[in-house]
């Protein structure tokens, strides 16, 4: 007997860059939530791990026209132009990273990964990070790690999972009540909840009742490197044209283009 199939979901984010102040609360919340390892000296950004990373953009104009915008960048959970053909999944020789059609989340199984780092080369967003060392926690901190996220070891790649363990917890709670219905509030990522400005909205992009459904249709919505066809699930909003232009590769003098959208 096969159970009735659930309607597939497509979890994604809409991040309002005009609201983001660059405070970094999302980065901190993410590190704590996901047992992300850190070192005493984090000045070398090439070997530090930040699943959620806030970038600073400027319009390169002299004072007083200078403008600054902060752009939080989680894993974009690319769907690709045909289903599940995201850049990293298609190159992984170990089946360590996978695209789940039920949630639209790109998973990373650390115990399967053998550290070839093809996926890091394939990812256009620098969303993937390599563990050059085994994590060393300050004394006593192992006891504070979350049991819901497995810790990583030296030699494997890790990245943002859209706090998937929170979806597992939400499903458990629903199953206990013998239902499969999960409310929008029951599954929210740590960064979404930590943002003091409310810049991040998270939900099912295909569900008309979720806030992200409306927001992604905003005329000011854009996605990073949209013209590559990665078909990401993280949308950004900004009223400033230079910010929207900074999200993709533009030739000098080329005007803002309306990219083709794969899912509405």
């Amino acid at each position: 007997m096969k159970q009735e199939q659930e309607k597939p979901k497509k979890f994604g984010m809409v991040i309002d860059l005009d609201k983001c102040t660059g405070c970094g609360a999302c980065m901190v919340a993410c590190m704590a939530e996901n047992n992300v390892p850190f070192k005493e000296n984090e000045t070398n950004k090439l070997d530090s791990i930040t699943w959620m990373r806030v970038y600073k953009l400027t319009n390169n104009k002299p004072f007083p026209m200078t403008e600054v915008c902060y752009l939080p960048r989680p894993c974009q959970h690319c769907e690709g132009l045909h289903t599940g053909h995201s850049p990293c999944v298609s190159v992984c020789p170990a089946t360590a990273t996978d695209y789940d059609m039920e949630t639209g989340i790109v998973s990373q199984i650390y115990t399967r990964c053998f550290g070839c780092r093809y996926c890091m080369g394939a990812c256009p967003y620098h969303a993937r990070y390599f563990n050059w060392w085994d994590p060393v926690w300050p004394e006593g901190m192992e006891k504070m790690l979350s049991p819901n996220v497995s810790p990583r070891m030296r030699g494997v790649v890790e990245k943002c999972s859209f706090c998937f363990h929170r979806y597992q917890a939400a499903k458990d709670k629903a199953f206990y009540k013998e239902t499969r219905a999960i409310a929008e509030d029951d599954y929210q990522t740590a960064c979404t909840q930590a943002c003091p400005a409310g810049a991040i909205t998270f939900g099912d992009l295909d569900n008309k009742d979720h806030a992200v459904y409306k927001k992604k249709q905003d005329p000011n919505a854009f996605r990073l490197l949209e013209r590559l066809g990665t078909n990401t699930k993280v949308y950004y909003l900004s009223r400033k044209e230079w910010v929207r232009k900074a999200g993709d590769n533009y030739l000098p003098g080329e005007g803002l283009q309306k990219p083709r959208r794969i899912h509405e």
Partner: protein
Amino acid sequence: MSTADDNEREVHGQETDADGGGHDSGTTVREGGGFVLLFFIIGFAASLVVGWLIFPNLLYSQKKQPFDFNHALHMGEVDNGCESCHFFREDGTYSGVPKLAQCVACHEDVQGDTQDETIFVEKYVSKKREVPWRVYSRQPDCVFFSHAAHVKMAKMDCVTCHGHIGESTSLPVYEENRLTGYSRDIEGHHLENLLCLKKNTADRMKMDDCAECHLEKTGRKTSVQTEKDGCFVCHK
């Protein structure tokens, strides 16, 4: 440099040589072949014995529980069946192995005269220390398991996956894999498991065992890579 044809001729030449010289020693060659076969069979049998009977015993170390526990006896004492000790929390997570809090109501003092109870009360209850139970079914850190999905939604009973521990009068010996530190219950205890002929679901609980039942019962093929369940269904 020789061409492919030259090579062929050379090979043929050698063959005829060997045929010509080997006529009268034909019988010894056959005897030698018999010995080789015999040694091969003995060696093969010996490595099977080592691999299947001796190595598994070397691979696992036997560990005792802190003290024995009698399920059958306790089922007669509690009011709420298994759920008196193994219950779901409000948020859908599973309590798993009971904490001291589920025992103290009855075990403030020693009631009977078994040594197990004395150890329990003196070493744990009176010192308010949790019992460091070894969990037979414990999966690796990276595995996510949901009792709610199986017990509440799929209505499976405990015996399907755990065997008859719930009706037993004493706890089995815990066997730990010396290399991985995992419980032997995951890999299975019997020879059949090595031969892939498992009889009960509870005999072995490796990834393929979970995935096989999932494919059969739910029919989900949502993983792009494996056309089975997505990895994040059971991993975290």
